[in-house]
């Protein structure tokens, strides 16, 4: 058996530059700029070259890409779907914890 591979947490403390985010999600910088403009993710830092994204943002960008590819939704539609999906997930977690 090989040594265990350490998993990286994609949480609020993980940080990615624009280039790292694009590589991990296989998207262009232009798409990320549009996603930011749509308010789906909010980078830290003002200049684009200093943008830092959290692990949560990375997960969201991946989701946008899947929703676009698989449903053909535009960014506004993806944004709405992600908001609703995250609400459902919060409710499901709360329900699971109290069941």
């Amino acid at each position, binding site marked *: *058996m090989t040594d*265990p591979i350490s998993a990286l*947490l994609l949480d609020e403390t993980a940080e990615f530059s624009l280039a790292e985010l694009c590589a991990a999600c296989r998207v262009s910088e232009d798409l990320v700029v549009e996603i930011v403009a749509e308010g789906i993710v909010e980078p830290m830092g003002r200049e684009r070259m200093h943008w830092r994204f959290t692990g949560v943002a990375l997960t969201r960008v991946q989701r946008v890409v899947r929703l676009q590819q698989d449903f053909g939704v535009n960014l506004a539609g993806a944004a709405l779907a992600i908001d609703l999906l995250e609400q459902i997930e919060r409710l499901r977690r709360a329900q699971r914890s109290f069941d």
Partner: protein
Amino acid sequence: MCNISAVEYKDYYTVMGVARDASADEIKRAYRKLARKFHPDVSKEKDAEARFKEVGEAYEVLRDPEKRAAYDALGTRKAGEEFRPPPDWQFDRGGDTDSGLHSDFFEQLFGGMARGGRRTEFRSRGFDAAGQVEITLEEAFRGTERRLSMQRVAIDERGREQPTTQQINVRIPAGVVDGQQIRLPAQGQPGIGGGPAGDLFLEVRLLKHRWYRVEGRDVTLDLPVTPWEAALGETVRVPTLGGRVDLKLPKGSQTDRQLRLRGRGLPGNPPGDQLVVLKIVTPPARSAADEALYKEMASALSMNPRQAMEDTP
């Protein structure tokens, strides 16, 4: 050239729930509907991922007029029936496939050709893989390791998909929360033509705990206490994820009073808290002496807990 082995026939029309003469529009509509139903981001159906792939594969064939015509030419068979492509089977290598995993049936028919045109000069990063892993609350607190079976699909020099199963050991650090995404770089599908491997993304699910409820990094524990512990404000032992601690109850505490043990929840920056909800448990009156004691309390500690209700008309 191709090694032809028997595979299970797939009825793509049944998978999509459309008639064999369905129009391109009908097929697209059926796909969109099924994709919404089984999309892993949207669906909570148990086998959503597998169904989504199946639907995607069916759509990949039926949306493409050439592939659809070739598939139709095979005639109608029963789903699951043993199938070998006809000896004269030749599918003109057309477009590129965009998914990492296909059924053996698809592979036999379209697999080797899907990337055929590019073969050796084609180099690209492997597909990302996704999955879920369930851990206990204690494991989330301390961190844990999991052994996972990974279905890997290598693309050989002929452009064919070669599935293998590999075991990997994954270390999950302390402080994950329910629904946490974790990333394992280069542990996804192998690269194509010498390209780098894709990443593996896992969603961590916390299993329900016998005592604790969990919300983000905060944990809540219902703590049974006796009336005298609550009334007199005694010190009681309370379990926490990091071990037992002594907690002094405020004098005169009632049921549902919440006490906060700061930083005793799941680790993080900042760490979560443990909330302790007091639940006063009354001792049963088992003997005449017990009853006498309760009667003595009734006369000595006169109290009407329903006063507020009675004061309201």
